């Protein structure tokens, strides 16, 4: 998306159990971003371009470890990723609804 909805580079953590944040603005590789938890904020540098609405890791996540959003497992990692890495269907798998 070409229109940033906020000037601040921000991302949202929906549930306190989550290990991903959702980008509320387009984020560029190497940018610092404020991740909003329910009651605190934290700064993270993203390793890749993250489009608006997409996810990145806020903790290191191992291969086959759960990706948690809404406090629930939405899939598992195909490969280990570091905090700040883009997570999508290129590196995350979910068997439900796929076969």
């Amino acid at each position: 998306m070409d229109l940033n909805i906020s000037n601040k580079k921000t991302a949202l953590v929906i549930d306190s159990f989550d290990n991903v944040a959702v980008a509320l603005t387009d984020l560029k590789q190497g940018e610092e971003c404020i991740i909003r938890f329910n009651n605190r904020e934290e700064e993270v540098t993203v390793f890749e371009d993250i489009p608006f609405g997409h996810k990145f890791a806020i903790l290191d996540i191992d291969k086959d470890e759960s990706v948690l959003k809404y406090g629930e497992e939405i899939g598992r990692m195909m490969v280990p990723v570091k905090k700040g890495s883009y997570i999508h269907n290129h590196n995350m798998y979910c068997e439900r609804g796929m076969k």
Partner: protein
Amino acid sequence: MADNFMGYQRKDGSVGVRNHIAIIPSVFCSAKVAERIAFQVPGSVYFRHPVGCSQVGEDLEVTAKTLIAIGKNPNFAGVVVVGLGCERFSPYELAEGIAPSNKMLETVVIQTEGDSLAAIQKGSKIAREMQQIASRQIREKVPASELMIGLNCGGSDMTSGLIANPALGYASDKLVAQGGTSILSEITELIGTEDILARRAVNDQVAAEIRETIFRTEEKLRRQTQNSSNKERTHLISTGNYAGGLSSVVEKSLGSMKKSGNASFNGVIKYGHQPDKKGLFLLDSPGHDGEVSTGQVAAGAQMILFPTGRGTPTGFPGIPVIKITGNPNTYIKMKENIDINAGQVLTENKSLEQMGEEIYQEILDVASGRLVKSEVLGHDEQFCVTRLP
């Protein structure tokens, strides 16, 4: 305190939020005649469909129940059934099914009238007269508990699950607390959430039905996708969903179920059936936008609430479809199609509760007669009867 709206009281005790004449073909062969009748009589709506013949068993039964239930929906003051004459689902059976609602009802059969022009003429005269009678009916003050809303969504992106759906969930909870009825559906988009939904069931039996409904849908999809030669077509989420940032059907499901708020589920209803009490229900239907809305309107919903992150212009004949987007960019691009900009949660720091309250007030306003954008622009794509294999 009880909230109210201005609606049309029907003889069977139900309440309409619109006062249209419905022109319903019993079979696809009479679709054009029905369309022409509706064009002759502005204010009437028609229901184009590809079914009604060469069907058997449960598939035909679902078609029959659905078309009858559409005719009984309280938004329609009168119904003109249009048949061909030799179809499997007879126009008289359709009319007999609608008759208990005690609304204005006539049947026109092409093979009886002689030809399509004769049928159009007869049907147009009937619809014209019904329209004049309906035009004398005035809206009366009724409690919000008379409302039934369908929760549907399409063209989802990350803002649907993050903003629009939770805000709608707030509005749905509020309507249910008023004694109204709300229907969650799209079983394909609830896969992976069965434990969470089952925890919200009023009793163990409903919990078991919720689990069984979701597992049955997943098993059916697994069978259907096993031999697909096109890898992309085995996925339960669309290319647009991926582009919007959703990575799995479970991620989409968790966002999808947020539409239903936190109320308890009173039961699970089959496609073409109506709930036997008020409150929140789960309707067994696939995820196709049109099949969902049609099942909800057949259940008795007078209105559809439709979050859309990517933006869709679709509507339903004679039923207001309130479009809500959680994506402020989509609202700017598609503001002629979208009714509510829940993206204000991102841009104006509004809370989800505030947005939910605005959606709830919009429900009462639209129920009282304010047209939504899809109605003004004549969008009617969502009527689509589900098929069984």
